[in-house]
């Protein structure tokens, strides 16, 4: 089956007029792509994987431990108090869900925009979305005081009247938005996986592998009649995911914007949250892919051009976010509402000034460095800056949640906020959980969408010489 002979096969160069920077470098053939990418799943587990896994798994275990303690003891184990009734849990929730957004953006919006470069990164980005949404989903579930009654948030029939959820609450919108987002992302991701699962199935040697991959490949034969429906469904899902991804973070922002708290109650939130989400999501994609492409030697598939393009998106969204920060402050002043004005002064100059300035430096100043090609093309710089972006976006949510709550309308209620070790370890635990899932993903599933990458190589184009065309075509 997969024979080494493909590696060396050079394909005839395209005519000059079609020359643009290729999405896959070194004119790799179709077969090379399957071999390279499936090889990651089929080959021996590298040592670094085991090391990473051995680190991430125990960290992930912190999460259930801390949650168990929380459930049996009470929300008081967190650092919350009376003005600050939401803290790290909600910060983490918004942060994780924001990270998720890049995956959907790459897979759906760029698909609709016919940005073919998305193909080498969308699988990993989508996986990241799903894992990030799983991490995000943990927090709204555990942050309620009586977790065993959390099912009351769902419209289930009951013998209490029946009593139903209250659909005016943005938290309920969240329930629908996040569960829809998770479900649709999962469907989308799985659908994209079907042909690639078939690839691995067809290459598999052991019965177990054959069975497992075969089961989930659903009997895919690459039939063009199937492809026809598949592509349509994929397009529709992409079309649905695009408004979905915009709505999810808009709805998350409604948690704040629909309330009346100074610093929360603002109409700029939905667009600014979406931009921020994409910003943070691209940050995380960069953080994950830069090491991966090196470790798995995927530089030809995930090229420097990909990284550069992502840096540009980060720069654009980072600038939008910076503009939004500025507008918030401007409107707070221009609006003439002293409560509003105070909330923003307090962010920048009050007791939590440091959080605000971390946010500004990481989210507004750092991405501006991406104007420079030297920085965009240097993987070390990009990696470090992407981590700053992640940090900055966490602090953005911290600033919004905590600094708005700790000094609101009535000075007599004003208070302070300090997280506890349970807050911190739960958050660290979700990072471990995320990384564990991601490691399992790269070990067992193709981390690049094989069939999609094949589809954008010249060899896939029936009108390209590499695709067998002799030039007499259309």
């Amino acid at each position: 089956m997969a024979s080494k002979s493909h590696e060396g096969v050079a394909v005839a160069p395209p005519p000059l007029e079609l020359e643009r920077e290729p999405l896959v470098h070194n004119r790799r053939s179709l077969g090379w792509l399957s071999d390279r990418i499936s090889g990651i799943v089929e080959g021996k587990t590298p040592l670094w994987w085991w090391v990473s896994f051995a680190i991430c798994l125990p960290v992930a275990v912190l999460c259930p431990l801390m949650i168990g303690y929380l459930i049996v003891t009470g929300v008081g184990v967190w650092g919350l108090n009376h003005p600050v009734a939401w803290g790290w849990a909600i910060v983490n929730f918004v942060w994780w869900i924001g990270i998720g957004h890049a995956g959907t953006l790459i897979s759906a919006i760029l698909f609709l925009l016919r940005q073919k470069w998305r193909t080498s990164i969308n699988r990993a980005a989508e996986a990241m979305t799903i894992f990030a949404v799983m991490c995000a989903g943990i927090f709204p579930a555990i942050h309620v005081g009586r977790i065993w009654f959390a099912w009351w948030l769902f419209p289930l029939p009951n013998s209490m009247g029946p009593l139903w959820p209250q659909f005016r609450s943005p938290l309920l919108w969240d329930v629908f938005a996040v569960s829809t987002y998770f479900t649709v992302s999962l469907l989308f991701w799985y659908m994209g996986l079907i042909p690639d699962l078939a690839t691995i199935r067809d290459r598999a040697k052991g019965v177990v592998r054959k069975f497992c991959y075969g089961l989930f490949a659903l009997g895919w034969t690459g039939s063009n009649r199937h492809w026809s429906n598949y592509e349509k469904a994929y397009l529709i899902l992409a079309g649905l995911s695009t408004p979905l991804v915009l709505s999810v973070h808009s709805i998350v922002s409604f948690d704040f914007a629909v309330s009346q708290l100074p610093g929360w109650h603002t109409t700029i939130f939905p667009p600014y949250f979406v931009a921020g989400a994409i910003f943070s999501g691209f940050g995380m994609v960069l953080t994950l892919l830069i090491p991966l492409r090196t470790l798995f030697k995927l530089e030809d598939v995930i090229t420097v051009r990909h990284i550069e393009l992502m840096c540009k998106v980060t720069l654009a969204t980072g600038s939008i976010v910076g503009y939004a920060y500025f507008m918030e402050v401007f409107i707070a002043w221009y609006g003439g509402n002293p409560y509003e004005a105070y909330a923003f002064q307090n962010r920048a100059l009050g007791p939590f000034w440091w959080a605000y300035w971390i946010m500004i430096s990481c989210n507004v100043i750092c991405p501006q460095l991406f104007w420079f090609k030297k920085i965009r093309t240097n993987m070390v710089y990009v990696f470090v800056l992407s981590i700053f972006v992640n940090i900055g976006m966490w602090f953005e949510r911290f600033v919004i949640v905590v600094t708005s709550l700790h000094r609101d309308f009535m000075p007599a209620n004003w208070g302070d906020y300090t997280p506890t070790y349970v807050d911190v370890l739960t958050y660290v635990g979700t990072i471990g959980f995320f990384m564990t899932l991601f490691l399992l993903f790269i070990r067992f599933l193709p981390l690049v969408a094989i069939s999609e990458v094949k589809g954008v190589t010249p060899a896939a184009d029936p009108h390209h010489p590499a695709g067998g065309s002799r030039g007499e075509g259309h």
Partner: protein
Amino acid sequence: MNGEDLHYGILAEFDTPAATMAAAEKVRDQGYSRWDVHSPFPVHGMDEAMGLKNSQVGWFAFLGGAIGFFGGNLMIWYMNSFDYGLVVGGKPLYSAFSSFPVCYEMTILFAAFGSLFGMLILNRLPRLHHPLLKNRRFAQVTHDKFYVVIECDDPRYDQDDTHALLREAGSRHVELVRD
């Protein structure tokens, strides 16, 4: 035709999408109906080459979306206004505005279900057992080879003619696939 029942169809292997497309056009022109092209990725223009109509998945998605949107509104109206109307924040018992986010999400959710399950229904998937999947050579379909398969059930199927047609179309390998 002797032993026809034992066979699923006839399979022809191609190396490039262009060659496959040319072969498909030939088969289409011959008026075959129960046949298919198999490829590692969707080949641009192949639908036309095979003479396929536009996919019907959209209707499933539309139906799902409509159910989601109107069902959502109905649910919210029923729960918050009709079945147990409570005074909440001085706000209307039912309002299209506050219901919109939930209905919007439900629209998307059900439309997504519609498109995925529509695709599966239209493709008759999952179908774990398939004669082609037993074929050793056919495993290359997810790697870098292209296949044109004509089923024995096709009214125009004739083992020799079809075989010749596929050879003529440029396939270097044509074989019968057992059922």
